[in-house]
């Protein structure tokens, strides 16, 4: 079968080290437009490092990341010849790559509305009135239009994370990266964030999600990736992964997670 389009994101043989410790040992992964890919795996498996390489918040040491046909981080010439992509090109790429963090990272000195309009106005140069109107639509979508004038510290973790999603969406990204976005939330607050993500997936947003929420992976993912020790162990549909995992390691992980 031939794919109708080139993937929106293609990661090829990605290697990353922290000092002498190699955390990614050659990752190959492609994400198609409209696809929801969920990465699961034990802590320290390199899932979050992988995400940080996709928008080059973290440098990597070998391999290639190509987003929407453009190289991220380093130009096409690989190996010792590789050249850094100019900072400006990187900034342009990041406009189209939304990211949501485990720790929300809302801007505490700005109101909720200003958090959402900050980048559209000051990065894209959108007229403030237009940006505010669009932001209100997004805040309404995450159910927090009534909090527009609050400051982040006045909100619960779940609310803050929904604002962070709205903030990323305000740049109209082509791909959304979610980095363990429910991991620092109390169990009763996870649901509201997962609901927003589910709605986003149903609208056709392309998403690369790193999470410990296996239920979410099972119900929302088009494909699930199981990572361990910096390697992809297995990729498959949720049905295949959760009912008939190919690898013994995947099986063990799923069993431990479901009973632990």
């Amino acid at each position, binding site marked *: 079968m031939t794919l109708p389009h080139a993937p929106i994101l293609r990661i090829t043989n990605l290697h990353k080290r922290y000092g002498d410790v190699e955390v990614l040992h050659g990752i190959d992964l492609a994400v198609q437009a409209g696809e929801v890919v969920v990465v699961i795996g034990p802590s320290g498996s390199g899932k979050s490092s992988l995400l940080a390489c996709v928008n080059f918040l973290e440098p990597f040491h070998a391999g290639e990341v190509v987003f929407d046909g453009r190289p991220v981080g380093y130009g096409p010439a690989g190996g010792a010849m590789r050249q850094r992509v100019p900072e400006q090109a990187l900034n342009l790429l990041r406009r189209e790559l939304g990211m949501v*963090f485990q720790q929300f990272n809302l801007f505490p*000195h700005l109101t909720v509305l200003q958090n959402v309009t900050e980048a559209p106005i000051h990065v894209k140069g959108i007229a403030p009135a237009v940006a505010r109107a669009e932001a209100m639509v997004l805040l309404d979508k995450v159910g927090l239009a009534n909090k527009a004038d609050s400051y982040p510290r006045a909100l619960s973790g779940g609310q803050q994370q929904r604002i962070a999603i709205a903030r990323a969406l305000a740049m109209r990204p082509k791909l959304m990266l979610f980095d363990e976005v429910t991991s620092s939330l109390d169990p009763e607050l996870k649901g509201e964030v997962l609901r927003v993500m589910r709605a986003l997936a149903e609208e056709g947003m392309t998403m690369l999600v790193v999470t410990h929420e296996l239920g979410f992976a099972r119900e929302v993912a088009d494909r699930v990736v199981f990572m361990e020790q910096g390697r992809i162990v297995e990729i498959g549909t949720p049905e295949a992964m959760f009912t008939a995992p190919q690898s013994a390691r995947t099986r063990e992980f799923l069993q431990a997670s479901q009973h632990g």
Partner: protein
Amino acid sequence: MDFSFDVFLAAIPSLLKGMVITAKIAALSALVGLVLGTLGGLARVSPRRVLRLPALVYVTLMRATPVLVTLLFLYYGLPSAGLLLDATTVGVIALGITNGAYMSEILRGGIESIDGGQMRAARALGMSYPLAMRRIVLPQAARRVLPPVTNELISLIKNTSLVSTVAISDLLRAGMDFMSWKANTFSPFAGVALGYLLLTLPLIAINAWLEKRYRVT
């Protein structure tokens, strides 16, 4: 105790003149210090070594040298290097570059106290490093450095008294001159102390107002 209210009153006009000079030198060197401190602080946290290194040398050098030594070094040294500047300018330079070094370190501390997630989030939204610094990190750091910056400015006002050593008729010099003239120590010096207090009070008030207005989060 030789306090005399008459001498105190008689000293006021010349003390006021000295206060104006002190205020002028303090304001100008604060300006130099704030500009150098901002540039120095930003350079200290810069990802570029070509900026970090000179800033580190500057800060280390200026903090290691007593202001009085810097002042006298420039006052006697610059003319022998062929550069003739008036005493006030030399005073402003000496106080300004010293103050700038301390301000740099205060700002560096303030910037480093802001969670790294703020910069990451800003960059992930497509902001350039300078834009993220200006719009996201610095406004938060500014709130945190307000109390130490105020401290530093108060120190600066009081350190201006050192320029009395290089023939500038600042507040301290005016008091000392009056003391010799009237052969009375306490009265003019009470005025001098009061003068410094009056100069620092507005700063303290401004600090309190700013802190209330931009409450630290």
